[in-house]
């Protein structure tokens, strides 16, 4: 009964992945060495921490709390900016997608220019729900999404645009990315959320608001991927709450050509290998046979 996929490289959104399982942005992605480690641990490709126009320390803590069924975080886009170029040097020719952000199309273009040689592709973070002036503040505006995508598309590297689920209609934003020249859509970033410590009567996160990830959001992510698969003509990469081979198959049936995995790596850096072991067989079927099959 279980579906097994054929092992081996796949090409999605202009990038040759070693398998369908990609490290999600912002998870173990600030150092070249941790990105390299995730590739060694079996990731088919890795997305870096989101890199912006200036170095940022991020929000004050707590930046992350682990809930029973998910993770709530507000890192605040800490990143070394331009200096991240150095981290990528040992990763030449590896499938490293550089996640970038900016406050406007020019900043997106500027950041992209630093990595135009080293990145296998760009992933545009227009979806972080808790960094003011960035992320979702761009990703909820179709015109800005289109303009930022165009600003990066001119480097002739594949451009993936990562969307926020915190919008009334995600397909409108997906269409804007596609219009701007995106090669793939990544869906989704975290869901805007909050928890409060009742004892000290204040939100637990330093930034008050944060983003929910992990198992709790899997049904929301599946829905977004399903909607985008119907409305877009470019590949969709599923992200949100994936923690097993079964989840991967479900995302693919919703319409994902590949998946990104973040929170489930907590406490289990060997997860990519584990999922691969469950998911792949030499005589497995091609993922083409199941991507989007739940739409028929």
């Amino acid at each position, binding site marked *: 009964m279980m579906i097994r996929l054929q092992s081996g490289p796949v090409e999605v959104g202009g990038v040759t992945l070693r398998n369908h399982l990609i490290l999600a942005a*912002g*998870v*173990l*992605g*600030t*150092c*070249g*060495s*941790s*990105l*390299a*480690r*995730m590739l060694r641990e079996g990731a088919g490709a890795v997305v870096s*921490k989101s890199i912006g126009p200036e*170095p*940022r*320390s*991020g929000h*004050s*803590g*707590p*930046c*992350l*709390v*682990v*809930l*029973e069924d998910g*993770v709530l*975080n507000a*890192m605040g886009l*800490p*990143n*070394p*900016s331009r*200096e*991240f170029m*150095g981290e990528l040097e040992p990763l030449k020719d590896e499938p490293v997608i550089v996640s970038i952000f900016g406050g406007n199309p020019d900043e997106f273009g500027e950041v992209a220019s630093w990595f135009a040689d080293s990145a296998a592709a760009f992933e545009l973070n227009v979806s972080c729900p808790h960094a003011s002036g960035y992320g979702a503040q761009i990703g909820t505006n179709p015109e800005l999404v289109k303009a930022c995508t165009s600003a990066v598309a001119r480097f002739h590297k594949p451009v993936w645009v990562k969307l926020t689920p915190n919008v009334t209609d995600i397909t409108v934003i997906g269409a804007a990315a596609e219009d701007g020249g995106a090669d793939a859509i990544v869906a989704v970033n975290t869901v805007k959320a909050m*928890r409060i*410590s*009742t*004892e*000290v009567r*204040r939100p*637990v996160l*330093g930034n008050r608001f944060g983003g929910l990830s992990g198992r709790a959001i899997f049904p929301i992510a599946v829905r977004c991927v399903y909607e985008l698969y119907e409305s877009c003509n470019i590949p969709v990469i599923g992200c949100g709450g994936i923690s097993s081979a079964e989840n991967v198959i479900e995302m693919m049936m919703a319409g994902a050509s590949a998946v990104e995995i*973040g*929170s489930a*790596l*907590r*406490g289990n*850096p060997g997860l990519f290998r584990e999922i691969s072991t469950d998911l792949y067989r030499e005589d497995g079927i091609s993922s083409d046979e199941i991507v989007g099959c739940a739409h028929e």
Partner: protein
Amino acid sequence: MKSWGVLMSDNLPLMVSVNRIVQETESVKTIFFNKNIKAKPGQFVMVWIPGVDEIPMALSAPDAITVQEIGDATRALGNINPGDLIGIRGPFGNGFSPNGHILAVAGGVGVAPLLPLAKQFQGITFLLGARSVSDLLYTSILSNCTDLLIATDDGSAGFHGYVAGLLRDMDLSLYDSVCVCGPELMMKSVLDVLDTKGISQRGQFSLHRYMKCGVGLCGSCCMDPDGLCVCRDGPVFQGDILLKSELGKYHRDSSGRRC
């Protein structure tokens, strides 16, 4: 699902109330609180000072942390009062895994994670280093439960010089485990001594790195060249693994830049 207990539902920070504050040296205080955190020696917790920040801290006792004031968050902890609430996430990390004859080597506030070790295991030899006699921490507790040797940079007590110097002249073949915590350069010197003597793999070093999540997700504590997370794969690493690492060369700040 019913969870009006000591721990809040989920893993939101456990709020503890400060009971007692002991000024240990000019810049170091022990903060005791009203709940016990079950942890292995060398595991750490993330301490939330509401309205300020959250920082990693060793547990110097099940109900205590030992804080050296160096910046905003540690200064806020220094100004805390009995009855104030702080939040605890954790314990996190691997902790020490000593076996056989144990040598502990502490520099400055690095004594914090080694104190529970000293209390838990009998017959430890403990090298305690500090700048000066007035910076020495927990000497009376340690002299009771360990074979205590002291080193001060200025010679105001014990051996005159760095703990690594004291170590160089000892017969380290007596020890199966060498558990170390202190400033990074001190730890590097200790590692070099162990390496020279060909026993780096007996060293267990509790590292300090900038941390945000504590659970192996955010990547801010990762080390070159293996991408190990200090928060989850550590904070305690075997010496031989550290030999080829960034230890003593550079680390990363809150933005991820090397410094």
